Structure formats: C-alpha cells, structure tokens
C-alpha cells in the first residue's frame, strides 16, 4: 500500500505543478459556469417590458392597460406609456422596451360599432418571446371584449330590455373565457441554469483528465521511469493502482471544486449533497476506467491525446453537456443513456429540481457503474492480449 500511495502522491505532485492542468480542470469549468450563470442571470424568470401607446383614450384602451398592469401579470410584465407610435418604435429599437402595443384612435368605438380598428404590436427580433406575449395578451383581451359584446347582443336579441344592457354588460365583463393565457412564476424548485451547467462543465473538463492520464503514462514510458519502477519490487497491480488513485483524486477534486464554487458563489442548489457526492465519485471512477482504456488501446503519447479528445467530445456531445436534455431530440436523449456523463447529468437535474436520495441518483449511479464496468472489462481484455510474455 505504501508503494501505491508513493506512486499516487508523485503523480499528483506532478499534476499540481502543471499549470495547464490547473487551468483545464479547476479554472476553466468554474469560469464557464460563472459565464453561463451571468448570461442566464442565474434564474429562469421571464420578464417583458411592454410599451403602450393609447391613441384611443377610451374605456376599451384603458381596459387593455389595466389587464397589462393586473396583479396576475405584475411579476412578468412591466408597462411603460408612450405618446405616439414613433416614440414607442424608437424605444423598441433601442431595447428600452421589448415590444409595444399601439391602441389606435377609435378602438373603443370600433368595438361597440362593429367596425375594425386593429391593435398594432411593435416587435424586435431580439425579443420575440416578449412580442408574442404582448400579442397574446392583446388578442385575449379583444376576444374577451368580443365575447362580452356577443353575450349582451345575444341577450338583447332574445328579448332583454334595452334598459338592462348596462347591467348585462357589467355581468358579462365579470365572466372569463374558459381558456386563457396566464403567466405563472416558476415553482421554487425549478432547475437553475447553474445547477445544471456547473456539474456539466465540471464533467466536461474533468473528462480531459483521461487525456492527461493516458499521455502521462506514455511520457513516463518514453522517459524510462516506468522501466525504473518495473525494475523495483513493485507489482504491475500496484503500479496501475497508484496511477488510478491519482487520476481518481484529481478528477474528484476537479468535480468537487466546480460543484462547491457553483453552490457557494453562484447559487446552485441540489436537494441532496450526498447524492452530489455519490455522482461525483462515480464519475471520477469512470474517468479512471476511461484512462485505462485509452492506455490499453494506443501505443504513443500522440495517439493517446488524439483518442482521448475524440472520446471526450463524443461523450459530451451525446451526454448533453452543452444543452439541456429537454432541448434535444428523443434520439439524443436515448443516446445520452449510453454515456456516463448523460446519466450523471440526469441525476444532477433531478437533484436540482428537488428530488432526493435514491430516487434521484439510483438509476444514474447504476448507469455510470454499468458503463465503467464495461470499459474496465474491455480494458482488461486488451491488456491481456497486449501483454508481452
């Protein structure tokens, strides 16, 4: 065991003296996670700044403004008034508001008189979603007003006295269409961007450890130090174990750093710290297995670097490290289950949405373990085939 620890300690000491390793495994994932957190403002809340131009000044236009300022939309929509369309246009172009609703002159009269006076929505390519919201609210409001008109007209046609029209209109206004768009805030346990991309970037960069480890092995072979170790009373198993321990510790340190910084500095949250630890440990074991596989497959440092890079990019592209799993096709989501990082991200996603314990990490841990076992088996077979007598 002392020899195993000596080899592991030596490898770790060498890695800690390698600045590029520091940057790739510790600094880069933290920086990229931070950038993503900033880019998405670290939450998934949706805001729409809507400008309103009231050229009508009638009750129908006031009603639309009241809908936009209603308590149901106050967390989502912020309303600003403009005197004319050109001012609203400039505000939209400058990004001061995301979209603007122009209520034309005669809008109220048109509603009551049956003529048309269409409401205009000024939009911007940068804020398509907010423009859609403005259109939807406007259409919903107009549909509601039309429904009120229709119900009153229906009552009058059925014989209701004209003197009751104001009362009927007031009652109709209290009714709501059976279906309407309602903006609701996300639940408290919604997945934060950083809770997903923190571990995701951590895994992406820790997978580069596969290349470091494999290259390191061949560099040692080239510089003769492996022979020197083999000439000492050190079994092959102790050598492999020592190197595996260093790769494991290094990978785990990388993942732990990213998850801790994501949690402490950027507000990432996972329901179960033990689950996070278990997924990190499983991924670190998997990195060890992948490193051994690359060593077993190739013969030179350059080949190791090349194969490791291909492997890393294939895994992160399939595993969903760059996009939310929900944003990909069903095929990609299925393929992600053939990757350890895909399974780990599934676990982190569940933990990030409030699921705890075995329910969150059970299947991911089994998935990663199965992948690692398969890689270890192939590696053992390859090493046995390659072994010189």
């Amino acid at each position, binding site marked *: 065991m002392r020899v195993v620890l*000596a080899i592991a300690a030596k490898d770790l000491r060498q890695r800690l003296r390698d600045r590029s390793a520091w940057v790739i495994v510790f600094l880069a994932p933290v920086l990229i996670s931070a950038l993503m957190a900033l880019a998405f403002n670290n939450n998934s809340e949706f805001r729409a700044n809507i400008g309103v131009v009231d050229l009508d000044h009638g009750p129908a236009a006031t009603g639309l403004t009241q809908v936009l300022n209603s308590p149901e939309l106050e967390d989502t929509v912020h309303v600003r008034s403009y005197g004319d369309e050109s001012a609203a246009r400039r505000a939209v172009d400058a990004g001061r508001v995301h979209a603007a609703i122009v209520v034309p002159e005669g809008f109220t009269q048109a509603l009551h008189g049956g003529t048309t006076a269409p409401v205009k929505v000024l939009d911007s390519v940068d804020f398509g979603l907010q423009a859609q919201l403005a259109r939807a609210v406007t259409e919903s409001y107009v549909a509601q007003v039309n429904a009120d008109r229709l119900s009153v007209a229906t009552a009058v046609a059925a014989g209701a006295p004209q003197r009751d029209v104001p009362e009927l209109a007031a009652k109709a206004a209290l009714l709501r269409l059976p279906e309407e768009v309602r903006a609701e805030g996300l639940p408290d346990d919604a997945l934060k961007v950083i809770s997903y991309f923190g571990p995701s970037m951590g895994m992406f960069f820790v997978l580069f450890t596969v290349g470091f480890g494999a290259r390191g092995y061949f560099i040692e072979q080239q510089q003769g130090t492996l*022979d020197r170790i083999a*000439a000492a009373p050190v079994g092959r198993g102790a050598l492999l174990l020592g190197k595996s321990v260093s790769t494991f510790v290094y990978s785990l340190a990388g993942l732990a750093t990213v998850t801790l910084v994501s949690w402490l500095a950027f507000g990432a949250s996972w329901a179960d710290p033990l689950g996070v630890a278990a997924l990190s440990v499983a991924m670190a074991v998997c990195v060890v297995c992948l490193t051994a596989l690359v060593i077993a497959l190739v013969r030179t440092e350059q080949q190791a670097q090349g194969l490791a890079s291909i492997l890393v990019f294939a895994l992160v592209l399939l595993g969903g490290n760059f996009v939310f799993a929900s944003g990909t096709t069903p095929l990609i989501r299925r393929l992600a289950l053939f990757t350890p990082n895909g399974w780990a991200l599934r676990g982190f996603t569940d933990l990030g949405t409030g699921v705890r314990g075995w329910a969150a990490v059970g299947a991911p841990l089994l998935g990663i373990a199965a992948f690692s076992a398969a890689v270890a088996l192939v590696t053992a077979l390859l090493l046995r085939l390659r072994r010189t007598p």
Partner: protein
Amino acid sequence: MNAPAGNPAAVLDCAHLVRRFGDRTAVDDVSLRIAPGETYGLLGPNGAGKTTTIRMACGLLRPDTGTVRVAGLAVTTAAGPAKKLIGFVPQDVALYPDLSVRENLRFFGRLYRLSRRALERRVDEVLDLIELRDRAGDRVDALSGGMRRRLNIGAGLVHSPTLLVLDEPTVGVDPQSRHAILESVTRFGEEGMAVLYTTHYMEEAERLCDRIGIIDRGRLVAEGSPRELVALVAERDRVRLSAVGDLASYADACRGMARVEGTARTGDHGEVVELVVKDARSLLPDLLDLAHDQQVDIRSVEIDEPDLEAVFLHLTGTALRE
C-alpha cells in the same frame, strides 16, 4: 519466497539466457556470473544484445529460456525479493524532470519500502556521493546533462543494492562527468558492491572491470579478465592503415592473406583499415605491395600492442565501433 539456489556465492547468476524478438535472436545462450564486489563489463557494439541481457537480469524482460538468479533468488519466481537487491541505472536518463533532485531520490527510495528515517538518511548519503547536495532542491530540468547522469546513477543507489546494473552510463556524457562516473563505479566495486556494466567503450571496460564478457550478435564470445582476454591475441598485432582508394576491395584482399585474422574498416569515413595479424613487421611489406597493386594510397601505418579492441577484432572479425 524461493529457497536460494544456483551458486550462492554469485550475486548474479545468468544461465543460458535466450531471447528472441520475432525471427531475430537478440540473446543466444548467454551465461555469466558475478561475485560480490566484482565489476563485470559486458562489452560489445550497439545491437550486440547487451541491453536485452541486462533487461533480463533486472527482471524487466522474461527470457525465452534460461534463468536469472540474484543472490540465489530467481528473478522470475521471486521477483520482489530479487529486485530489492538490484539497482538499475538505465542507459537514458530516467528521472522526473518536474520534480526536484531530492524528490526523485525519495520517490525511487520509497519503491523499495525504506522507512521514512532510513530513506532520508540514505537520500542525504546519495546526494553527497553524487555531489549534488547543494542542488537537492532544484528541479531536474534545471540541471546540466552531467548532473542528470549522476542523479540517474544515484537513483539506482538509494536503496543500497547488492548488485548495481549500469547500462552504458557514459554515452553522450562530457569528459568531466564521464570521469566522475567512472570514479564512482570504481568506488562501488571497492565497497563490495557487485556491478554489471555494459559499454562499447573498450577503455572503460579495461579501466573498470575485473572481468569482461565480449558479446557479439547475441552470443558471449569470450569472457575473462582484461589480461586473460588480451592474452588471447598475445602473439598478434593490430595494424591500422590510413589510406585512400578502394578500401573495401583492399580489406577483402587482406582478409585472404594467410596471417591476417581480422579486418575492419573504421574512421569517420571508412578511411582506415584495421587488421589483426601475426608478426606485423614481417607482413607489412606484403600489405604495402598489395596496396600498390590495388592502387590504394597508404598515408600512414600504425602497429599497436594487442588490446581489447584487437581481441574483439580477432574474435568477431569486426571492429567494436563499426
């Protein structure tokens, strides 16, 4: 652990070693023994099988047939205990360039399971021995080539081996460092350590070794003390002819002469023909006549007393550094 077997007096006992790589036989039935305190030189040109032999001796390569025992312990079946007794110094500097001198020595010492206290004491001793105490904290990549060579040897000594195996430790070394290395090896022998030293430098083998094995094309063609080996060609002289002309044909023609026992072309551009002959003085006129007949212009003639170079030429028909 296996019970000690073979010759218990021998620190290293290699018996009938054979190692093939595909169709090529790199080592062919090589046997050698080294006694405690003895320095044994394995002398041969590049590709003769020296490195393959010592890799088998150190347990880095399994022989196809034959056995290796270190202090009676079989390297194949009692690898751990046998390897504990061996200090291996590879031909190329095999150190970690990003670790310090002391860290390198500590690491290689730990592989031999030295206790912390014993390791620190031994590292200090080795640092003194290789004269790098004042550079102990420096990274290896900051050392000169000669210092790295010395540290390369030091890393093989840190666990106080019974048998030190050095594979051409002076290749590419400046004269000053080379002298220091040779001095150290002499001292190891004097201190009772058995040394297996491979080289293709005849003068190193002559200076350092109690016994020498001459290896050529995988076979051990002769073995003995330098004096015993030179005695093999005692009646012969080595003639060096610097010449201009078709020296290949001239060397072939010389080979056909009755008293010529070995020929080789040496020199940077093959401008020297070396011969091992009986009674050079009486043969010299015939050699000059032959040169004249073949329109070879002889520029200088040297006749040397027999040495290991002549022995090698005599035994293998080729020069050591061809």
